[in-house]
């Protein structure tokens, strides 16, 4: 009897043990701009991407249970902070992902560090997230200002665009993009002949464009985003900037912006992205699934949304390897030690400073006549290999990279 009891206890223990080893519960929060200017870049499309990633992963790993939350940070650092604090403390969220808007991303990154959770940036651009302000709980997935600057800036200087005039959005992101691009232009033998800093959300750019025109610079670099970029390019087409021989460099242009401009206006624009829906069959198939999930047949996913999919996928892999999501620092450590491999970004790595590196693409917007179907936006002009696409580890001034 005694033997039987102990056997039962032993087997119960065993069962318990295996159950514990297998069952992993994870809670993920997608925080994005759900209702304002960046809502098409990340927003509900990012939540849809996260859902797809979770569905794919739990299908292959039925022992993993994932809960998904989403919230709107309204582009306000204080709103973002209070939501994330509540997520971490009350809802027991393990991972926060996306956060377009560098201001909010800096705040979230700091909270994730202090509470030892995980933060994957997809939507925010500032390269300082893996530079001076890096930490061991943050991974920057999709792109950053250095990558944009280096991709577009270098390519244009090399093809003869050696004098630049900047239209710069007058806040942290615009300054960072202007700084990184100027550095890339000058490092490749180009020259910055002038710049004008315009307020965020400027309606009319014609005055600034006349200044850019008068500067005789070959390239007009748009260190701004969203509506500002669209209004700059629209006015540029009208004032004959491109016909006059000058060229725009869109330093942060998403597929959704090109759609808003229309190809007739946007044609010839050079830009850099790390993911494009029409690049290969895998991306196209994924886009179909995303459109079904998002219930938006005419929309096309952006690199930010693809980054959310890939980020969630890799995170879950690391959590399974770690057998728990509780220790954010350990999970990020694991994310860095196992190589990344997902259908959308292919094989890559995450560096010590938290920077995910992968190939990026130099694209050019097609002429209307060359576009065969909706969403057929770009010619692929060059592929920049992962090793060159991002800021070298040693130049970032990130303390994690030094140890």
């Amino acid at each position, binding site marked *: 009897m005694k033997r039987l009891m102990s056997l039962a206890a032993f087997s119960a223990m065993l069962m318990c043990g295996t159950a514990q080893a297998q069952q992993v519960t994870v809670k993920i929060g997608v925080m994005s701009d759900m*209702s*304002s*200017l*960046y*809502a*098409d*870049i990340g*927003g509900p499309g990012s939540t849809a991407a996260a859902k797809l990633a979770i569905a794919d992963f739990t299908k292959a790993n039925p022992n993993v249970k994932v809960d998904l939350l989403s919230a709107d940070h309204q582009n306000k650092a204080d709103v973002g902070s209070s939501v994330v604090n509540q997520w971490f403390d009350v809802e027991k969220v393990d991972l926060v992902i996306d956060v377009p808007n560098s201001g909010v991303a800096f705040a979230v990154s700091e909270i994730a560090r202090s509470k030892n959770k995980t933060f994957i940036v997809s939507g925010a651009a500032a390269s300082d997230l893996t530079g001076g302000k890096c930490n061991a709980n943050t991974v920057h997935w999709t792109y950053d200002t250095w990558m944009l600057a280096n991709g577009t800036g270098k390519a244009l200087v090399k093809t003869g665009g050696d004098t630049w005039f900047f239209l710069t959005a*007058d806040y942290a992101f615009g300054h960072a993009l202007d700084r990184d691009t100027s550095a890339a232009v000058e490092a490749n033998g180009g020259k910055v002949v002038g710049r*004008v*800093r*315009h*307020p965020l*959300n*400027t*309606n*009319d750019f*014609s*005055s*600034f464009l*006349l*200044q850019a025109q*008068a500067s005789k610079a070959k390239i007009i670099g748009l260190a701004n985003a*969203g*509506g500002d970029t*669209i*209004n700059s390019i*629209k*006015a540029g087409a*009208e*004032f*004959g900037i491109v016909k*006059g021989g000058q060229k725009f460099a869109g330093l942060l242009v*998403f597929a*959704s*912006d090109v*759609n*808003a*401009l*229309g190809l*007739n*206006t946007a044609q010839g624009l050079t830009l850099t992205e790390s993911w494009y829906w029409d690049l290969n069959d895998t991306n196209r198939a994924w886009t179909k699934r995303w459109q079904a999930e998002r219930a938006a047949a005419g*929309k096309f996913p952006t690199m930010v949304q693809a980054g959310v999919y890939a980020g969630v996928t890799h995170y879950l892999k690391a959590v399974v390897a770690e057998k728990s999501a509780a220790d954010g620092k350990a999970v990020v450590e694991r994310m860095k030690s196992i190589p990344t491999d997902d259908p959308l970004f292919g094989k890559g790595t995450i560096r010590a400073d938290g920077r995910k590196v992968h190939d990026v693409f130099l694209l050019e917007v097609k002429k209307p006549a060359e576009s065969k179907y909706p969403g057929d936006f770009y010619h692929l002009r060059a592929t920049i290999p992962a090793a060159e696409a991002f800021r070298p580890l040693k130049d970032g001034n990130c303390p994690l990279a030094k140890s």
Partner: protein
Amino acid sequence: MFELCIPEFLGGRCIPSMALFSQLLIGLINGSFYALLSLGLAVIFGMLNIINFSHGAQYMMGAFVAYLLLQHLGLNYWMALIFAPIIVGAIGVAMERLFLQWLYKLDHLYGLLLTFGVALIIEGMFRNQFGSSGLPYQMPEALTGGQNLGFMFLPNYRAWVIVASLTVCLGTWFIIERTKLGSYLRAATENPALVSAFGVNVPRMITLTYGFGVALAAFAGVMAAPIYNVSPQMGAELIIVVFAVVVIGGMGSIMGAIVTGFGLGVIEGLTKVFLPEWSNTVIFIIMAIVLLVRPAGLFGRRT
């Protein structure tokens, strides 16, 4: 050729005198939009005593209706210029009948809050339906290209904006200040009871006036569609500036709204050259000064 500079402590930027002409012209073009929008606000405030905060949303609806007419009915820009104001104006009329007519006797604040709420609802609905990044709207073929004026390249469309806006502005001023219909309107604002005693249907006149003010906003929206980003938040960004223009001009003054609209466009344009970082702020600085010196605005009547 000489150069114009601003003092060293303000940054000391210089531009050649030729460039100044072009910047003045650009300012005038932007002023056309301010004038058109502040005119609508002034008409509505002057006649109905309603501070119409949904004016920005109605401007945005004008641009979207133009887009929808083109996409679904194949109606081009010129047709949109006529039909979009009528459609959006009709929506305005419905809004006046449903909500605003109950508020005339109350404090201005109620109308302001109601129209502000309506604006948020409209913008939210458009964002849900069309997303936030905007829609493309092609410029009509006849207005593409431009003229070389010697000192600048003037796109034909911008020239058209000035002409159309001036025509509409002065026409509106003429109707309200110089015709019999206008005199009825003005009388109805002063003393509605007496005017209705003469057999004039005052409530209907007020409703149509609101509809007209809204149609002006929609007209500006169609004008903006080919050159600015057609997005749900396009009106919210502009409306704050336009309110400042109305306050500077004097609430309810028709001519005041037109003159200050153009004038502030020019001042803002010059700021974009000499102190670009200040270009979004300069109008509010002027507003603060005007409110200190002339609280009723430059053209306002003291009440």
